[in-house]
């Protein structure tokens, strides 16, 4: 199993090959797609991409944590985090694909 990393460059190329539009425009479309997801999450919106998964903003309460290096207690402010739940289809494909 060859481990590969997918980055923007490959996505630009994929869209370019699929739509046959100029590379620069394909790059802009990919970028804008990601950005629209980020903007929705910034508004606190849940992003549901059918056949892929759900991105959701979750609020974390303030708590006292610890600096793992020094062991000293440190206050952690309330914050928002993203949780991603892959769709059943994606879970099944990932599990099947990586078990071979």
């Amino acid at each position, binding site marked *: *199993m*060859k*481990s*590969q*990393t*997918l*980055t*923007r460059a*490959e*996505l630009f190329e*994929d*869209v370019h090959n*699929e*739509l046959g*539009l100029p590379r620069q425009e*394909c790059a802009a*479309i*990919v970028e*804008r*797609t*990601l950005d*629209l*997801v*980020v903007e*929705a*999450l*910034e508004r606190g*919106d*849940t*992003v*549901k*991409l*059918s*056949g*892929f*998964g759900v*991105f959701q*903003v979750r609020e974390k309460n303030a708590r006292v944590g610890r600096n793992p290096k020094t062991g000293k207690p440190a206050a952690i402010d309330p*914050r*928002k*985090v*993203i949780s*991603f739940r*892959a769709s059943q289809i*994606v*879970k099944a*494909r*990932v*599990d*099947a*694909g*990586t*078990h071979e």
Partner: protein
Amino acid sequence: MLKSELIERLASEYPHLTQKDVERAVNLILESMISTLEKGGRVELRGFGALSVRSRPARAGRNPRTGESVKVPAKHVPFFKSGKELRERLNLTGDDNAE
């Protein structure tokens, strides 16, 4: 926001593209990510986040209805870690600008 809403929005910003083409682009982006994970690879999108595959060891689970113990086999699951920039953008408040 649903995928259909994302596609509509993109299509309105790229009026010279058909909605069908925008839909193909969005589906292709998602499909490329899935097939990379399927091959055991990872997806790295700076500013957005990274998707990777994590392995979960086999464990003894329980059938919640009957209480019976069942073996849950080891599996691989997709995992998303948000990027630094996304985390920062989520947590921006007025007084953060002072930093």
